[in-house]
Structure formats: C-alpha cells, structure tokens
C-alpha cells in the first residue's frame, strides 16, 4: 500500500501563511531596519552590519545585558526553589485545596502595570506601607527612588511576589499526579523524606519544572512593564534592564537602526539561552 504523496502540504499551507504574516513579516521589517539608516521620508541608506557592531561594542548595551542576566538569575534561583517548597507544603486533598489554589493564582491575575503601580505606592518612603514601616518603624534606610540596592531588592521581591505562583501551580500539578503507591512503596523501602523528594517527587516534577524554568526565563528576560512603572529604570540607570533600554533607544532617541539591531541580538540571546536550558534539562531522557 503506497500512501506517500505531497498532498499533506496543502493542509499545512494555511498555518504557514498565518505564521508568515504574524511572525516572519514583522521580524523581516526589523531585519530591514537593522541594516539601513533612514532620515525619514522613506529614504534608506545601506549600512551593512554597522549597527550590530556598534551595539555589540557599546558599554551601555553590556551594562544593560549584565543587569538583565543578574535580574533573571536572581529571580530564577529564588522562584524555582521557593515555588517547589510552597507546592510541597500545600495540602493534596481537602477543603483547603481550592483556597490555596485561588490564593496562589491571584497575583498572576493582576495586570502588569497595576502590579508596578501597587508596588510603587507600597514602597514609597514615608507614605507607602512598606516604605513607612522600614524607615520610620524599623529605622532601616530604604528608598527605592534613591538607592540602587533598595530599587533592586524591590524589583526582585516584586517579581517573586508576582510569579512564584506560576512555579507553585506547575510543581503542584506535577506532585498531585504522583500515585499514592509511590509514597507507600517508599515507606516500605524505608526511604527518608529527602530520598522521597530526590527520587520520586523531583523526577515526577521534572517535565513541569522544565516548562516553569523556560517560562520564567523568557518572561523575566523580556520583562518591561513592572520595573518601568516601579522605577522607570532608575535611580540613574541602575534598574535599566534590556527592554527598558531598548525602548529608550527606539522611542526615546528614535534610533531605529541601532534599536532594530539590538532587538535581533536580544531575540537571539533569548532563543539561545532557552535552547540551552531545554537541552540541558531534557538531556537525561534522551539517553
């Protein structure tokens, strides 16, 4: 029986067209800007890879990229373990399950710019609840509008507050899918709680954790709204993460060429690191 023919392509064609229009075409416009210079009136001059070279050599880009990696690294090493710990502590059955789940989901339902505004008001020195408490009750000098350290602590804590729930919910989904028999067998085999975690819970959570790490990496690496609303990238440039810097170049200075080149580099880094994470975390299964 011969079933091979080329007819399948016709079924894939609509999807290809759709992808072309919503992904390829916009990306190609960016590519177009990244290799040319324009002074308006639709007049373009060929620039080659000059913009790329300029961005890659610029200290400003290096600094923003460094801040971006630091931010992503901090939130990943806090949110992933914290999310797992909270998921482990959550009840598996009973009336508290829906209460916990809804409470966990709440932060994720709040629009991003609202989160930024909330935390801005919450942390303003002297008038915000936290700002007042830190400065006037505890006597700690805390001012995220003036001190880079305070600003960094605030954006990291804000992101942890906003997104740890995602890790919790994904881990929890992995945990509840483990049949009771595994825990019973572990009890009979005399496994310690650490071994139960290491050899039963962690392996069973691995797939969802891979997804959690990838989502949290991509989201935090591309973060814009919350820190922009909270600190506007300041004080100084201390919290100017990559996308905040990109928007400054593209819309503030209207340097379309360098901004386009930076976008493509940014995109390539995100893609590369995501691929690295994915490859490393799924390596064992392929063996």
């Amino acid at each position, binding site marked *: 029986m011969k079933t091979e023919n080329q007819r399948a392509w016709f079924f894939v064609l609509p999807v290809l067209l759709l992808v072309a229009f919503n992904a390829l075409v916009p990306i190609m416009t960016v590519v177009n800007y990244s290799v040319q210079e324009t002074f308006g009136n639709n007049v373009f001059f060929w620039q080659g890879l000059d913009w790329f070279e300029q961005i890659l050599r610029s200290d400003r880009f290096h600094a923003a990229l460094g801040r971006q990696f630091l931010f992503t690294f901090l939130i990943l090493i806090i949110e992933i373990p914290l999310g797992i710990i909270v998921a482990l502590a959550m009840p598996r059955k009973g009336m508290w399950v829906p209460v916990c789940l809804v409470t966990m989901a709440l932060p994720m339902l709040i629009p991003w710019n609202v989160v930024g505004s909330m935390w801005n008001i919450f942390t303003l020195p002297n008038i915000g609840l936290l700002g007042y408490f830190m400065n006037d009750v505890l006597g700690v000098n805390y001012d995220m509008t003036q001190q880079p350290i305070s600003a960094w602590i605030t954006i990291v804590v804000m992101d942890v507050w906003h997104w740890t729930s995602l890790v919790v919910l994904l881990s929890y989904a992995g945990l509840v899918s483990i049949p009771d028999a595994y825990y019973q067998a572990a009890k009979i085999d*005399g*496994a310690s709680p650490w*071994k139960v975690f290491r*050899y039963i819970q962690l392996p069973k959570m691995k797939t969802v954790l891979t997804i959690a790490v990838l989502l949290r990496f991509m989201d935090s690496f591309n973060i814009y709204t919350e820190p922009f609303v909270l600190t506007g990238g300041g004080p100084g440039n201390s919290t100017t993460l990559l996308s905040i810097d990109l928007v400054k170049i593209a819309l503030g200075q209207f340097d379309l060429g360098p901004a386009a080149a930076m976008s493509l580099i940014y995109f390539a880094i995100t893609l590369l690191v995501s691929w690295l994470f994915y490859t490393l975390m799924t390596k064992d299964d392929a063996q």
Partner: protein
Amino acid sequence: MAKITLSDLRHSYLPNPSGPEDYALKEIDLDWEDGGAYALLGPSGCGKSTLLNIISGLLQPSEGRILFDGKDVTDLPPDQRNIAQVFQFPVIYDTMTVRDNLAFPLRNRGVAETRINERVSEIATMLEVEEMLDIRASHLTPDNKQKISMGRGLVRDDVNVVMFDEPLTVIDPHLKWKLRSKLKELHQRVRATMIYVTHDQTEALTFADQVVVMQDGEIVQIGTPVELFERPQHTFVGHFIGSPGMNILPAEQDQGIIRFHGEAVAIEGAVTGEGGKTELGVRPEFVTLAEAGIPARVRKVSDVGRHAVIETVVGDTPVRAVVDDADVEQGAEVHLAFRPDQTRLYRDGWISSEVSS
C-alpha cells in the same frame, strides 16, 4: 519469615463509625501460616486492599491487633515490619538504574555495599533480569518493571511477607501467565509467606494453596481451590468462583424434604437448622439433562469449546448446565437432574447441609 495473626481486626474510614455498614472491614480473625501462598479474592470494594494495607502498616486499623510471630506490630511503621508490597501499577524509581532500584531498600537500611552487591545479583538471577541491571529503570517494559518492584521486596532476606496487590493489572495477557508462574516458582524458592490480592479467580486459584474469599469486609470462606469449588460455604463463593458460577435456586423446606418448584430434590445429606431463606446450590457441572426430573425449557445453548453451557428456565428461575455435547435446540422442553452428592442447601446464604458419611 513469620506467621501472621490478625486478631479482632476492624477498620472504618469514618472517624466515628456507628453501625456495621460503616466498617470497610468487619471482624477479621485470621492466621497466615509461615511460608504459605495465599490469595485474597473478592470483588472490587470488598476490603481486600484495606486488609493488605493494614498488614503492611500503611493503614492503622480502627480496632484489633496484628501479630508477626506472636509479636505485636500494630503500631510499627511499614519499614520496620520487614514486609514487601507489589502494587497494581509498577512502582520503580525512574531515575535510577535497575541495580540501584534493587539496592535501594538495603542502602536505606545501611547494609554494607559488598553484601548489597551479593543480594542484588542473587535476586537478579532469580528474576532473570541480570542483563538489564545497568539500564535506566524507566526504559523497562511494564512486566519487567513489575519484576523489579517485586525484586525490591525480595532483596531483603529477612522479609516477613510479600504482598501483591493485583500485580498483573497492567501486564499484557500473554505475559500474565509467564509472570504468574514466575511468582509461583519464586514462592517455592524463597518460601516466604505470600499474599496475593486479586478479583480474578483464575489468578487466585492458580497461585494460592489457600484462598481467602472476602465479601463486604468479611471473610466468607478460607480453603483450597478444590474446597472452594466443590463445597462453597456461602452462596457468594458459589457464584463468584466458577465459570459459570453455581446455580443458586430458591427452595422450600417441607418436613425434611427439599423442594424446588414443587419437585423434591435429593441433597448431599442431613439438613441443619431451620427457618430463614433456604436456597439450593448446585454447580452447572453437576446438572444433567435427563429423561425425567425437573421440567425446564432451554433458553440458550452456547458452545464454549470443550463443553457447552445450556441455559434453561424452570418456571422463571434460570438454571445453567454444563454438558459435554449439547444436542438440544433452543426452546426445547427438557428435564433436569442434579447430582445429589453435589447439591447443597443454604440458609440465609450460609451452607446448611451436611455431607452424609
């Protein structure tokens, strides 16, 4: 290895059980002899798994004690009871190799590494999994996974009892038979007490020397497969075991004569007790078509290979007969004869006739 005694065991999943219907297990008194091969047979929800989990210590009974060789273990956790349990779905530690899986219970108990290697290779030989020792356990087929989870139980040489909770559920039919005979062989080699929980009578009857039949949280009969087949103590055992099960027929007791649909029926021996609901029990294998006897009409004849099952109705009571060759047509009027020494009387479900000596 040990003799296991269950004394006055009762269990309820409710915090404050009030009546017998609140108990998943009602009054279990039972001895499992050292080295025996037992099957715990009963329909789903009859309390078999509850009983198993109580023996392994995963569940605390509401009342009663569990003794291993006379020593009270009721309050001991599972890992201190030295038991092994194989679950319905194979439990293996995915990220470990087969070797590490087998060594796991020993490592948790701090056994010396040389001793562990010795035991692991012994068990691997016994289970015929030597060539798989160094591959990741997650790559195994379900039947091999089930072997490994069995091996994790057997690897401890001080194991008191190995329990199987419907272990063949996920195994392909053609491998079921193989694994079952492997179990039987293992039992003969290690001589550990084994308890095999199942709702499948074939599995129970082929594995066990003694079958414990349960229904609604109660033990209805303990016996060898032959005893269960030939002389069920309860109508439930009668129709649960055998394919098709025993004919259970409404009967009247009339001054020592047992009548079924007005016809006098000879039974095995003297009738004990009186009153209650009386029923006749006769296996289809011992019902024959005869020249004279109880008039019946054939409703259906099904040829199942070596023999045929004839479904008849007497009045509106169905009676099945298993015969070697069925030369009757559907709708035919026939007469049935019951073999007297295989016909029993039951009163309120329990046997109420004696074997005449």
